[in-house]
């Protein structure tokens, strides 16, 4: 009797999480999958099993271009975030001596993230706009005659905003792994004759890989799923997969949006899978 009770209590303890996961993860994705096979017209959806929605996605040049564009953003933003994030974390972890200072600077890094994404994006407009601060300054200095058009409502602006929004997601996990590197390893490397660059390449980077992988997963999922930044910072001139889905939803084409979402989900999962193949992050979790 007691044995049955103790087994039941184990299941009971696991129940809340199971319910939450079922309700908020399995159920929505299942519905997405089901709806993606449905038929629809201007006013309603019809339960069905057709491949038409997927057909439309796969056989349209526009979707291919948009997927390509999203991947391009993803790659560039990832590379920039990795570069900036790595060096910020490196500075915090290895050059700032006292723990208090480290924590203080780290908190300062996170302060911008206390405001909303949209506000942080909008705040670029007065700076980058056609008659914005930057253009005016450059013109007054006589460096340029015409305002620089590429600064706002362009790919440049999208990438800038994304890097601004997402770099911290790279800094945090990398900083976290770097702080766990035993400092005596660095001394041991120096004892073995390694110079600063060799220590970085042979000791610090290999040991920071799990943090880089976790940060990369954050960036990939955030950029691939983004639609607000792309729409806003490109002034509607560029599209991402997210914005296609959002448009289709606006037109009440839910099954089509669902098909796109399923394809996007698969692509992101493949990318995350590829990252995890290269780096074992288990010990960081």
């Amino acid at each position: 009797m007691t044995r049955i009770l103790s087994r039941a209590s184990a299941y009971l303890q696991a129940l809340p999480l199971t319910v939450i996961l079922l309700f908020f993860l399995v159920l929505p994705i299942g519905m997405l999958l089901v709806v993606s096979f449905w038929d629809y017209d201007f006013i309603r959806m019809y339960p069905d099993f057709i491949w038409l929605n997927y057909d439309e996605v796969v056989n349209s040049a526009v979707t291919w271009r948009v997927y390509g564009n999203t991947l391009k953003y993803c790659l560039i933003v990832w590379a920039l975030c990795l570069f900036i994030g790595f060096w910020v974390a490196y500075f915090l972890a290895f050059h700032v001596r006292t723990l208090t200072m480290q924590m203080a600077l780290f908190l300062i890094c996170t302060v911008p993230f206390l405001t909303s994404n949209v506000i942080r994006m909008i705040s670029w407009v007065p700076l980058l706009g056609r008659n914005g601060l930057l253009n005016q300054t450059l013109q007054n200095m006589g460096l340029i005659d015409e305002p620089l058009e590429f600064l706002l409502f362009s790919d440049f602006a999208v990438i800038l905003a994304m890097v601004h929004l997402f770099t911290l997601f790279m800094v945090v996990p990398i900083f976290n792994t770097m702080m766990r590197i035993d400092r005596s390893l660095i001394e041991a490397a120096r004892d073995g004759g390694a110079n600063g660059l060799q220590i970085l390449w042979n000791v610090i980077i290999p040991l920071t890989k799990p943090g880089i992988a976790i940060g990369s997963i954050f960036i990939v999922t955030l950029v691939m799923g983004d639609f607000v930044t792309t729409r806003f910072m490109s002034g509607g001139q560029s599209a991402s997969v997210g914005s296609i889905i959002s448009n289709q939803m606006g037109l009440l084409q839910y099954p089509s949006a669902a098909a796109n979402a399923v394809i996007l989900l698969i692509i992101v999962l493949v990318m995350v899978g590829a990252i995890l193949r290269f780096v074992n992050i288990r010990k960081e979790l």
Partner: protein
Amino acid sequence: MSKPADVELISVTKRYGGTTAVDRITLRIKAGTYCCLLGPSGCGKTSTLRMIAGHETATEGDIRLGGAVVTDLPPARRGTSMMFQNYALFPHLTLVDNVAFSLKMRGEPKAERRRKALEMLELMQMSAYADRRPAQLSGGQQQRVALARALITGPQALLLDEPLSALDPFLKIKMRQELKRLQLDLGISFIHVTHSQEEAMALADLVVVMNEGRIEQAAPPREIFDRPATPFVAKFMGDHNVIAGRLGPDGRSVEIPDGASFAMPAADAAPAPGAPAAIAVRADRIRIGDGGEPGFGFTGLVGIVEYRGQRVQVGVTAPGIDDFSILLPEASFFGAPLKRGDAVPVHWQPSDVHVLGATPA
């Protein structure tokens, strides 16, 4: 392997901000010596070792290795090699890559450095594990790999920072013997930091007892144990009874605060009566019973009795004397057992009195 070399510290000082960790120490360690830096934590022994290694810079003074001044050289160019307390093996590299690390940094070709690293692992009897990672090894195995990594550069002196502290007692003794054998085979100096006097006595040719950033005594272990220079050394090495007080009017006795007086041989340079003075008597030289000459014994109460196997340690207290203990052979203790609270007379031979000096300033 390069030639063994002398290590010399000349008035070396290390200050961290306002605190002095190492205070003007001067020490010469001859080539091929097994030297133990011994002392309680915070005595400056690790700072001293790290200055020799080049992982700390000396605030003042010079460090010489084989005649060359290495005070300002980076660690890898000093001809020393360090084995770290927790071994500091690179967790992401296989053993062979760990051992070959310094060769890789020097830019040796891959096949060559792998061959040398395997040879070194062979010497440490670890070649069977060459392609494993450090996390898959036991503490003793990790230590052998750390040794292999430290020795592959052919150092003139090997520096070991508490190498045995992470091991369990049995392994500690085994690895201790391996260290000693290795040092004898290689013929280079090992400088070994430890806080265990037992370890230092078992291993060292030269024991350097440190306290508060200074060297209290540097001598072979037998001399350290038999003729400790200062009360600190006598107490730290253990099995000594230190009787401290003031020099009596005749210059041949120590008067403890409570009025009792113990005889001692006259000091060479006669300090003024009333100056601080201390004597030490080895705990195993003390006899129980009457029959001592005056000034070479007292009567006290038995305190704690500890059974140690071959010996039994009996604590004795008397007014002005605490922390006094006697080591009795097991047979003689159990022939006439004592228990807590018994009053016993104790005495020792005049030749067993050892005069302690003051701590060097």
